[in-house]
């Protein structure tokens, strides 16, 4: 088992002289649920995208499972997956066709069996033959989560996994994520504006502010440092 899941060294991203992520160095152990918090424009999504190789860093290095992302990109990507409400699947084809496509890209063995198992767990079995474009937001989120779990990722990146979902669907997703992590001992990195969600799911928090790390450590330490008992209080205090 690798020692670390994610390690970044002086990671920065600059667009036309505007720095979005600045000198971020983190060292996350293997296994667990970690939260990345920050206000709009803090650099959360850019940070996540760099970890997946979607955005090339301007400076710094990324190591996933102790291996350089630059040198072992395709080997690493086999074990990573991602879900975001801002990223969709093709709307004109069925859910099943979409899932089979991604299962092929990840070289998933026993594709249909895997899809049926996940679709049963995520309650999407009834609309596997529906076109993706006809699904509700809640259904789409569950399908996207199914896509993100097809390769049993060792590192799962979730960008606002419950954005615009109703209370019961959000709770279902959170439970599912927690169980998945326990069952597979995988590493899950979540960005969310839902502070309660991060509080419930994550033991370790990375706080970004204007692209820089403001805090990186255990949730309890953050509370202690800020003399607060909730993330909401910390954020509100910060606004004042």
């Amino acid at each position, binding site marked *: 088992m690798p020692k670390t899941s994610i390690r970044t060294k002086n990671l920065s991203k600059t667009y036309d002289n505007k720095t979005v992520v600045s000198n971020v160095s983190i060292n996350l152990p293997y296994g667990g649920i970690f939260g990345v918090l920050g206000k709009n424009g803090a650099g959360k999504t850019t940070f996540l995208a760099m970890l997946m190789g*979607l955005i090339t860093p301007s400076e710094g290095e990324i190591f996933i499972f102790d291996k350089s992302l630059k040198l072992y990109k395709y080997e690493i990507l086999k074990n990573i997956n991602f879900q975001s409400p801002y990223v969709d699947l093709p709307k004109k084809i069925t859910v099943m066709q979409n899932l089979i496509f991604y299962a092929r890209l990840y070289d998933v063995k026993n594709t249909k069996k895997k899809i049926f198992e996940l679709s049963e767990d995520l309650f999407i079995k009834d609309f596997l033959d529906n076109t993706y474009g006809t699904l509700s937001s809640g259904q789409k989120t569950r399908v996207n989560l199914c896509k993100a779990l097809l390769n049993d990722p060792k590192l799962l990146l979730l960008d606002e996994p419950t954005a615009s979902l109703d209370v019961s669907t959000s709770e279902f997703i959170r439970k599912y994520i927690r169980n998945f992590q326990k069952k597979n001992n995988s590493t899950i990195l979540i960005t969310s504006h839902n502070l309660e969600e991060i509080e419930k799911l994550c033991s370790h928090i990375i706080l970004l502010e204007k692209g820089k790390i403001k805090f990186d450590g255990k949730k309890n330490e953050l509370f202690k440092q800020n003399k607060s008992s909730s993330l909401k209080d910390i954020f509100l205090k910060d606004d004042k």
Partner: protein
Amino acid sequence: MINRILALLIRYKNISFGSFPRLLSIFYWPTVQILFWGYFTNFFMSNESFGIWSALNIILSAVVLWDVLFRGQLGLTMSFFEELWSRNLPNLFITPLKDIEMVYGLILISLLRTLIGITPAVFFANYFFDFHLFELGLYLIFLFLNLIIFGWSIGFIVSGLVLRYGQAFEELAWAIIFIILPFSCVYYPLDSLPNIVQDIALFLPTVHIFETMRLILIENKIVLHNVLIIIFLNLLYLILSILFFLRMIFVARKRGLLFNQGE
């Protein structure tokens, strides 16, 4: 009321004239139409000796082969655009899929779409107009392949531009083929064009392809020199266009564009 109509007018003006490709497509079409029909009419007026069926055969062959180029290019760009429109690029690019594998996939789907699109047209033309595209014999395969390859080259350039500069360039996917139509000498020979335009047109493989088609249909002969030029130009453009497309993916990663594409 006037204010609301004015608001609509400004809004549509901004959409229509807001980008260079859109602007180009607005003023280019009338010019293309006039040039094309002008050269076309000139050629057939000066070749009255052609029987109507021979002329029809040449025109239909040209129509079908031109469509190969159009379908080839469109098959590639539309398949790539589907990923953009459905905001699916991040999902795609975080898989172990290599950029070059995407190139192969796009080429194959374009080939499939073109074959499906063209086959019924050929059979209908054969049935209704006694049209014999197959008179071109094995050369038909050569012409077909080279037209579709040039279609891929254009497709990769357009896809790369859209990835890098955004959806304003989507207009090019429909327009670019017709931009090169008058200079491609599809329905008339190269010498119908003014001398200065001829010099530029010679850089288009389509010119040599359609000249070859006419030579086979009218004189039943083929010029090796033309064949070699077609192969050379096509390979050169295909390699350059693929390199351009791959470079645009690299730039998109650098500028964070893969995350922000979509409808």
